[in-house]
């Protein structure tokens, strides 16, 4: 069973890696969007999937990262990729400040507050707050990234940048969720009081989950800004947060393969349904309902973590 899964993942990875060679620029660009949303949804997955916090405002952090990049790049002409950590830091810091007072809110109250956050940020951007966001025009003229002397411009070039970043994210997040930190998030998701009673600083972990999620979303914002070269507040509206929320839940809360598949479905299906023209979103909506009914835990719910129990027991026996 486990081997079969690995074979599927490897095959998927190889096909994905080679896909720019047989897809046209349009489909490569669709995959680029899927990639960006995969990373975003993975970062939301830490907060929503693992820590179980109802966070429907992830686009706020994504926006902060994109705007940080855009503002610094267009005013000081610092190369885009250097700004990757800066964007992450700004978003992460914002999360730290914002999340602290609201983190204790229960389920749906937290949901509406995070919706409020993303709306406040969007309205601030539209109203050209501090005169640096360019209002509803947004910011344009963002430069293209240069990686090791190679200017990234074409869809297939972005494809490798984005999916490379996605691969790193998947690798790190997979380790993260199989560590003390990942477990702590699951404990507090399952039972806040029992987690605290087992010695877990739940408030701290909720906060850190927010910060890590926001940090990553900020970095995705950086790549998004570089790809679009123009960013406007409308790209970060509440609906984007809803899309991310749907990806995580449709794919499977707390499951990395699930989230990746969720991104493919939520971003890819409307593109595939394009031939239905005006009815495409109707079909998409119906699809979501049907999918949830037949796979209530998401399409690929997480597998339980494995521990080398036999190994440890065996060693103990020999001592």
């Amino acid at each position, binding site marked *: 069973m486990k081997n079969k899964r690995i074979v599927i993942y490897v095959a998927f990875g190889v096909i994905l890696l080679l896909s720019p060679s047989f897809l046209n620029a349009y489909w490569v660009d669709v995959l680029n969007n899927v990639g960006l949303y995969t990373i975003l949804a993975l970062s939301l997955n830490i907060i929503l999937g693992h820590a179980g916090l*109802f966070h429907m405002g992830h686009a706020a952090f994504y926006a902060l990262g994109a705007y940080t990049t855009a503002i610094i790049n267009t005013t000081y002409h610092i190369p885009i990729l250097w700004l990757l950590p800066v964007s992450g830091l700004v978003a992460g810091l914002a999360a730290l400040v914002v999340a602290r*007072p*609201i983190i*204790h*809110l*229960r389920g*749906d*109250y937290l*949901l*509406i*507050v995070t*919706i*409020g*956050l993303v*709306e*406040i940020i969007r*309205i*601030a951007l*539209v*109203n050209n707050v501090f005169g640096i966001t360019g209002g509803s025009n947004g910011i344009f003229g963002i430069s293209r990234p240069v990686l090791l002397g190679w200017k990234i411009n074409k869809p297939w070039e972005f494809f490798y940048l984005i999916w490379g970043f996605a691969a790193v994210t998947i690798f790190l997040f997979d380790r993260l969720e199989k560590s003390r930190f990942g477990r702590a998030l699951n404990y507090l998701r399952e039972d806040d*009081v029992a987690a605290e009673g087992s010695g877990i600083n739940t408030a701290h972990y909720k906060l850190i989950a927010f910060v890590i999620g926001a940090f990553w979303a900020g970095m995705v914002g950086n790549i998004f800004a570089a790809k679009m070269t123009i960013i406007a507040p409308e790209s970060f509206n*509440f609906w984007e947060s*809803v899309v991310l*929320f*749907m990806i995580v*839940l*449709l794919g499977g*809360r707390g499951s990395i393969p699930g989230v990746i598949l969720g991104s493919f479905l939520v971003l890819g299906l409307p593109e595939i349904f394009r031939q239905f023209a*005006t*009815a495409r*979103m*109707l079909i*998409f*909506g*119906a*699809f*979501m*309902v049907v*999918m*949830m*009914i037949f796979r*209530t*835990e*998401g399409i690929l719910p997480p597998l339980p973590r494995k521990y080398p129990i036999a190994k440890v027991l065996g060693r103990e026996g020999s001592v």
Partner: protein
Amino acid sequence: MELFIQQLTNGLAVGGIYALIALGYTMVYGVLKLINFAHGDLFTIGAYLGLTLLTTLGLTNYLGPFGVVIVLALMVMGLVAIVGAALERVAYRPLRTSHRLSAVVSALGASIFFQNAVMLIYGARYKVYPHDILPRTAIHVFGLDIPLIRLLILLTSIVMMIGLYLFIQRTKIGTAIRAAAIDQGAAKLMGINVDRVIMIVFLIGPALGGAAGLMVGLYYGQINFTMGWLYGLKAFTAAILGGIGNIPGAMVGGLLLGVIEAMGAAYISIAWKDAIAFCVLILILIVRPTGLLGERVAEKI
């Protein structure tokens, strides 16, 4: 002062509509703990059905303005209630025992579906109600002109809220709804047909949403297929503000949200109005984590 009172009435009129939609949200939430994201679209459907009935049935030939409104309201509420019940049956019932977030995705899917269905059926352009249905008289108080219909909207919302409250508190079905809201399992053991209770909730909630849609159509005239999303979000905010699951809370939350928006627009900035409303909401929730009238349940350990 005059300006203040004028803005207060502006806010209350808008708030009355928020409150009416929020009532439906809160009822469904109270029993199922489900945020019915498709509720706003039921509101849209109410507005469109109202227009269709109004233009096809020719009620204005037989009835006076208020007769038309009442007949129309009953029909719209009935039809939207059926849509709501069907929605529950198809999209929510299969998910009742699973994690509550799964139902949220189903609700979002249903919302996308309804919105696009309305667009496909009625087209994407604005639709407009006939202008001459309701009398456009205004009453004069404190030197202000307050359109009569605004007062009627507010009044209707309050009457519906009180009616709903009495229904929940005083009738047998209401008791069953309250019981199911507290503990579905225990309610079942007490011989309450929980499926039926949920069905009733999904008849009443959407009916109220549909009524709100009709009201918006009749008063403002202009309707479009995306309007449910915005109103739905506002009503959800209102329900949370008042304490979700709490019927007077939805009313208070709706009216308060309307007033905060109007005051924010009047005294701070129009462009920042929604941000101001959300800031107030966040501040209120920081101080009262379960909303204004929400019960503070100390968790039993």
